[in-house]
């Protein structure tokens, strides 16, 4: 896949935050134990007027603003999420209309738990490679749900990132990608249910760790690289601990993980998680930097990417849109009561 890859990228994280200690207090848990146990200090919270459509539009607009391509040149938009506002009716059409990419456009919404966004990147890569489209826009975004009192409540947050994939003005070449997929029911949400269910510790070794390690090893075998060949590594981040642990298993160092690890300060943005991690790395990456990304989606599968940053990154108008660090810094805290209002946890008739 010579010189096909990321042309631009944009991120979005809602401004509101809630601290893990605030949630722990409500449920009678020890705040210090929860915060250090999960490695999550605070998470982003979508406001009443924010959903996957608005987050995706923000991310898409930020991506377009940086590279200056004409929206009409975008031939496909795929939005990966597990919290699409509509069960039937795509989010992608809203994004397409909002950025002016309609109507000569392929659109579909994806769902693969937390890895639907990276699956969208793979689809766009294939369409660009086969010359069916010039540019594709792959988005991963979520306003993830958590049952009140569930362990997921400390992590499930909101945010997203969009990547323009093409052959021209590529700022980071995607050298290779592969996936590792099995039917492993570690986390799910049944049709019509408001909150997801999960298999507790089953979401660990047979699910997250197995899929990420297998997929990552497969890609490095295929490309012929070793962990030390990479400047940065991004893994899916359901909590603050798993990414560093899986990095250690594979032979990556905490330093390689650091720039792409956002979960401790924004929570798990699900379909946005590894995408935002990659966006954060691209914010600081220099030409020739090598980046390794492996996402994870429950159910279950992983997508791995071997990426090399090009000289073109110096031409990208990064300041036309907020950096991930700026989105993180722009914050306002809410208490649990406000959180219940924003997350539609209150019941009234």
């Amino acid at each position, binding site marked *: 896949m010579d010189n096909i890859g990321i042309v631009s990228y944009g991120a979005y994280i809602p401004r509101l935050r809630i601290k893990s200690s605030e949630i722990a207090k409500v449920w*009678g*848990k*020890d705040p210090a*134990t929860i915060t250090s146990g999960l490695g999550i200090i605070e998470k982003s919270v979508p406001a009443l007027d924010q959903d996957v459509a608005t987050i995706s539009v923000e991310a898409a607009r930020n991506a377009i603003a940086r590279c200056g391509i004409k929206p009409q040149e975008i031939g496909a938009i795929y939005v990966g999420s597990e919290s699409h506002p509509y069960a039937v009716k795509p989010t992608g059409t809203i994004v397409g209309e909002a950025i002016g990419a309609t109507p000569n456009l392929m659109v579909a919404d994806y769902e693969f738990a937390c890895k639907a966004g990276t699956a969208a990147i793979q689809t766009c890569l294939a369409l660009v490679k086969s010359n069916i489209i010039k540019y594709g826009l792959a988005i991963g975004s979520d306003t993830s749900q958590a049952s009140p009192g569930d362990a997921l409540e400390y992590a499930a947050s909101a945010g997203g990132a969009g990547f323009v994939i093409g052959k021209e003005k590529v700022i980071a070449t995607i050298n290779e990608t592969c996936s590792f997929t099995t039917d492993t029911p570690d986390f799910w949400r049944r049709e019509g249910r408001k909150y997801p*269910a999960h*298999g*507790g*510790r*089953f979401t660990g070794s*047979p699910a997250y760790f197995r899929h990420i390690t297998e997929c990552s090893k497969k890609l490095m075998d295929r490309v012929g690289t070793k962990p030390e060949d990479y400047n940065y590594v991004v893994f899916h981040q359901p909590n603050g601990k798993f990414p560093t642990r899986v990095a250690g298993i594979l032979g990556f160092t905490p330093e390689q993980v650091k720039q792409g690890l956002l979960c401790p300060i924004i929570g798990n943005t699900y379909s946005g998680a590894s995408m935002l991690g990659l966006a954060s790395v691209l914010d600081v990456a220099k030409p020739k930097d090598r980046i390794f990304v492996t996402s994870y989606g429950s159910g279950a599968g992983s997508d791995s990417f071997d990426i090399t940053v090009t000289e073109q990154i110096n031409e990208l108008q990064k300041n036309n849109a907020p950096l991930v660090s700026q989105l993180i810094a722009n914050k306002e805290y809410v208490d649990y009561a406000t959180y219940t209002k924003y997350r539609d946890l209150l019941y009234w008739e």
Partner: protein
Amino acid sequence: MRDVAIIGIGVTKFGELWDKSFRNLIAEAGAKAILDSGISGNDIDALYIGSMSAGRFVGQEHVGALVADSSGFTHLHIPSTRVEGACASGGLAFRQAYMSVASSMHDIVVVGGIEKMTDVVESEATNILAMGLDQEMESFFGVTFPGVYAMIATKHMYDYKTTREQIAQVAVKNHANGALNPNAQFKKELPLERVLKAPLIASPLGMLDCSPLSDGAAAVVICAADIAKKYTQKPVKIIGSGQASDMFPVHGRENICTFQSTVHAAKKAYKQANIEPKDIDLAEVHDCFTIAEILAIEDLGFVNKGEGGKAIENKITTLDGSLPVNTSGGLKAKGHPIGATGISQIAEIVMQLRGQADKRQVKDAKIGLAHNVGGSGATCVVHILEAM
């Protein structure tokens, strides 16, 4: 009635064994026990299996024949019987097997115990376990096992001045032992502070006062004592077996801090063995909750009623104490796959009496006791074993 000996033991790892099914686990334990015993499959006259709720945990009943078939004994057409008595299922299966050999009905019997508990979510597992309580008088009103044992703990603290720290020390001790048991679910030591600070389950019991949900299986091979040396150099004789029952729900009992089933089962076992509690070198007792171990050492006669907490505090029951209790880590640290528990207790005692318990070996262990409780004490079975 003739003497009966244990000639082989087999235990699987206990824990969240997602890659092992019900039938994998029991076949593994059975195969290990048979290999350990030196018998061949054709020597087996009968099988007994303890399992509390295979139906609710894995959707499978009729597990007697299933175990015989999946263990490769289809062609033998031997009797295979499942025994159920809530958490005492394993101990009861062992007793049935023992009686069948003691009565000369059979010569060589394999008895296993199993539970595969992690295929259901935790709340469902709690509901399934609560079926071991009185549905009409207890569970219906919302009480679960932690609730019952929490009431017992509260009363014990009130009546006998047992302290929260003494109760928590049971978990500390059992985790220290579990750390030495390669098959234990939790092989980590646990500081007292962590037990005391763990999330509350039912006051005063916290998360770390409770035994876990576990998958696992255990099996032993028993035979008539007079042929035991044909198979092994270190047979272990069953010198006492007692089983008793008590008022089913807890609330009607004269003193909820005494399990009369334990008192009576132990009395019968001691009488048959012709020994007294002081003759016991080590014991595996049913610590489904920390407070349950305190009750057990009192009801088994190791200490006077009300002095269990003090005994724990004075470290009488630690590995190097005068009466080591739950050297395996107990239900708390080793894990508690319900049906397997009673059999794994027997396996631990056998290991100790053979001198094969490695880092957790009790010096000069000659006589050991296994105590397995069903429900909140409505059933109890006690076995006393002696090195031959």
